[in-house]
C-alpha cells in the first residue's frame, strides 16, 4: 500500500549568513503515507521546523523536490501555491505569537477562507466557523473574544481550527503542544488524533519531546544538524534504536518511574556544533563515543538495515 501524499527528494534549505552558508536542512528524503503521521524529532537547531516550513514553501527550498500527490510543487507560482495551500496547512508552535492579537477568534478562523475564497456566502462562513469551533472544543461564546482573553490550550485550539478550515489533506504540526501544560497537552493530543481519524488527515508532527512523538506517530525520523540520521516505524525506533545519537536521545529522557533511578546513565557530552559550512561526514562524530576516523572522511548515506529501518552510521557498514 504505497500511497504517499507528501514526498521530498533531496530537499535542502540553506540560509546565507555573513559567515557562510548555514545548512539548516541538508538533503532530506521523506515519504508520508496518506492518513499516517511522520514524527520529526531532534534538538533545537537541527532543522526540523525549517523542514516543515520548506515543505509548505513558506521558506523557499534551496534545492530538491517536493511532491504532493505526485506533483512537484517546487516551481509552482504564487497563485498556484495559494491553490495548493487549501490542501496543506500548518499549526504553529507558540499559540501566543501565532494569532493576530487584533483579530477576534472568528476572524482568525475565517481568514484562510477569505484568502482562498473557498466560501463566499457570509452565513455559510459563519456556519463553518461554528462547526469547527465545536469540532475543536471551543465553546460558542468565545466567537467574538480576542486571543489575549484565552489561555494557551484554547488558543492552540484556535490554531487547529484555522488549520482545518480549508479541509486540508496534510497538516504540518510544528511543536503544537510544547508550550502547554501536561494536562492540556494531553487534551490537545487526543483532539488531534480524533481529527486524524475522522478526517483522514496526514500529519507531519515536529517535536523535541520523544514521548509525545512516540504516542502520535506511525513513523519517526530523527534529525541532527539538517540531516536524517535514522528513520523507522515508531515501535521499531524505540525498541531497537541503531544510531548512537538516537540511543543517546532516548537515554536522556527522564522517565517518570523509579526504575533505573540509580543506574548511571550514558550522557552524551558536548553540544550541537556550528551548522555554518559544516565539515563533510557524520555531523554527530565530534560527540559520538563510537567515532572512527572514517566517520568524517566521506558523506554517509542512509542504509536500510531492516525493512523500513534506515540509518546513516559507519557502525553498520
Amino acid at each position, binding site marked *: 500500500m504505497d500511497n504517499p501524499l507528501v514526498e521530498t527528494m533531496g530537499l535542502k534549505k540553506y540560509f546565507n549568513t555573513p559567515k557562510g552558508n548555514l545548512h539548516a536542512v541538508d538533503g532530506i528524503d521523506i515519504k508520508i503515507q496518506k492518513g499516517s503521521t511522520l514524527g520529526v524529532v531532534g534538538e533545537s537547531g537541527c532543522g526540523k521546523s525549517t523542514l516543515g516550513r520548506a515543505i509548505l514553501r513558506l521558506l523557499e527550498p534551496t534545492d530538491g523536490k517536493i511532491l504532493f500527490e505526485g506533483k512537484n510543487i517546487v516551481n509552482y507560482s504564487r497563485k498556484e501555491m495559494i491553490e495548493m495551500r487549501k490542501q496543506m496547512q500548518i499549526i504553529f508552535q507558540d499559540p501566543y505569537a501565532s494569532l493576530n492579537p487584533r483579530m477576534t477568534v472568528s476572524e482568525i478562523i475565517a481568514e484562510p477562507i477569505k484568502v482562498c475564497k473557498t466560501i463566499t456566502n457570509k452565513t455559510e462562513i459563519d456556519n463553518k466557523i461554528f462547526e469547527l469551533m465545536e469540532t475543536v472544543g471551543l465553546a460558542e461564546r468565545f466567537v467574538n473574544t480576542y486571543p489575549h482573553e484565552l489561555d494557551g490550550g484554547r488558543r492552540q485550539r484556535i490554531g487547529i481550527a484555522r488549520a482545518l478550515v480549508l479541509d486540508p489533506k496534510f497538516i504540518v504540526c510544528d511543536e503544537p503542544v510544547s508550550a502547554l501544560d501536561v*494536562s492540556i497537552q494531553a487534551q490537545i493530543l487526543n483532539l488531534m488524533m480524533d481529527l486524524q481519524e475522522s478526517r483522514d488527515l496526514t500529519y507531519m508532527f515536529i517535536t523535541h519531546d*520523544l514521548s509525545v512523538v512516540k504516542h502520535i506517530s506511525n513513523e519517526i525520523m530523527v534529525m541532527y544538524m539538517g540531516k536524517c540520521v535514522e528513520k523507522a516505524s515508531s515501535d521499531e525506533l524505540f525498541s531497537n534504536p541503531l544510531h548512537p545519537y538516537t540511543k543517546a536521545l532516548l537515554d536522556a529522557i*527522564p*522517565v*517518570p518511574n*523509579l526504575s533505573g533511578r540509580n543506574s548511571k546513565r550514558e*550522557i552524551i557530552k558536548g*553540544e550541537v556544533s556550528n551548522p555554518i559550512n559544516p565539515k563533510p561526514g557524520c555531523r554527530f562524530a565530534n560527540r559520538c563515543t563510537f567515532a572512527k576516523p572514517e566517520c568524517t572522511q566521506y558523506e554517509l548515506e542512509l542504509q536500510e538495515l531492516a525493512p523500513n529501518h534506515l540509518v546513516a552510521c559507519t557502525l553498520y557498514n
Partner: protein
Amino acid sequence: MTNKLLRIEDLYVEYETDDATMHAVNGLDLEIEEGETLGLVGETGAGKTTAALSVMKLLPEKIGTIKKGRIELDNLDIINAAEADMRSIRGNIVSMIFQDPMTSLNPILTVGDQIYEVLKLHRKDSSNAQLSKRVDEILQLVGIPSDRKNNYPHQFSGGMKQRVVIAIALACEPKLLLADEPTTALDVTIQAQVLEMMKTLKEKLKTSMILITHDMGVVAQTCDRVAIMYAGEVIEIGKVEDIFENKNHHPYTEGLFGSIPDLTKSTRRLSPIQGLMPDPTDLPKGCAFNPRCPKCMDKCKIEKPANAVNGSHTIKCHLFK
C-alpha cells in the same frame, strides 16, 4: 529540634491587581530536611514559583504580599526579617536558580564578573586575589573551563548559561537551593547533562534543594521527596516511592500521570484532566480541584479536605481518611 532546614507553615500569599486579588498560595505547608531534594510539581499557576519567591522574600513589591503564615529557614524567621538581614541570607543560606538562563544573566558583564560580584558582597574579609581564585574554582565545578570567565553571556550556549547561573547560585555554598524549572528551557541531552551535574554538586556541597518542575520524569530521576501543588496548596506529598509506586493518589496526581504519554506502553488515548486550572481570583469553595475532579462528592464542594497522613505519604482529599 530536628534538623529541619526549612519549615513553611500555613502560608498565604496574595497578589493585588487593579481589579482583583489573586490567591496565589493558600495555606502551604512544607518542610525540608538537610541534604534533601524535594520536587515541587504542578502546572502553570499552581503557585510553585510564588512559594519559592516568598522564601527569598523577593515577591514583587507592593503587589505580592504574604498575608499569613510562617517561614523558618535555618532557625531564622524570614517573614519578619529586615531587608538588610535578607541581603545576607540570600546567597549565603538560600539562593535561587531561575527558569530562563537566557534572561537571568546580565548581558553587559562577563560571567566571571557576575560570579565575582556575589562573592564580593558576601565575603568581605577575603582579598581580591582569593576571590578571583574562587571564581575559577566555581567555574570548574560546574564544568566550564576557567579561561572562559572573560566571556559574555551571549558567547555561551543555553546549557552553558544555565551552568553559569548555577555557579552564581552556589558561589557562597548556600544551605538551600531553590531551582525554578532549571532545565525546562534546555534540550533533553543538555538537560541530562545539567541535572547530572546538579546531582553531583548537591552531594558534594551537601546542599538541600527544592526542584520546581512540571516534568514528572525529572522528579523521578532526581528527587527524594515530592510535593504536588494545585491552586496554591500541597495536595499530596511523600517520598518518591510513595508517589511513583504507591497506588493511592489524589485524583489530580492521577490525572497528571494519565496525561503523560508513556514510553513503555502503547496506549491509543491519553486520559487527561478535564477543564482548566481555576481562576486564582475566584477559587472554588471546598476543595479547589472539585470542578475538574472525576471523583467529586457533595462534601468536596463545601468542605476543604484535611490531610490524610499515612506514614511518609500525605494526601489532602476527602477520599482518604
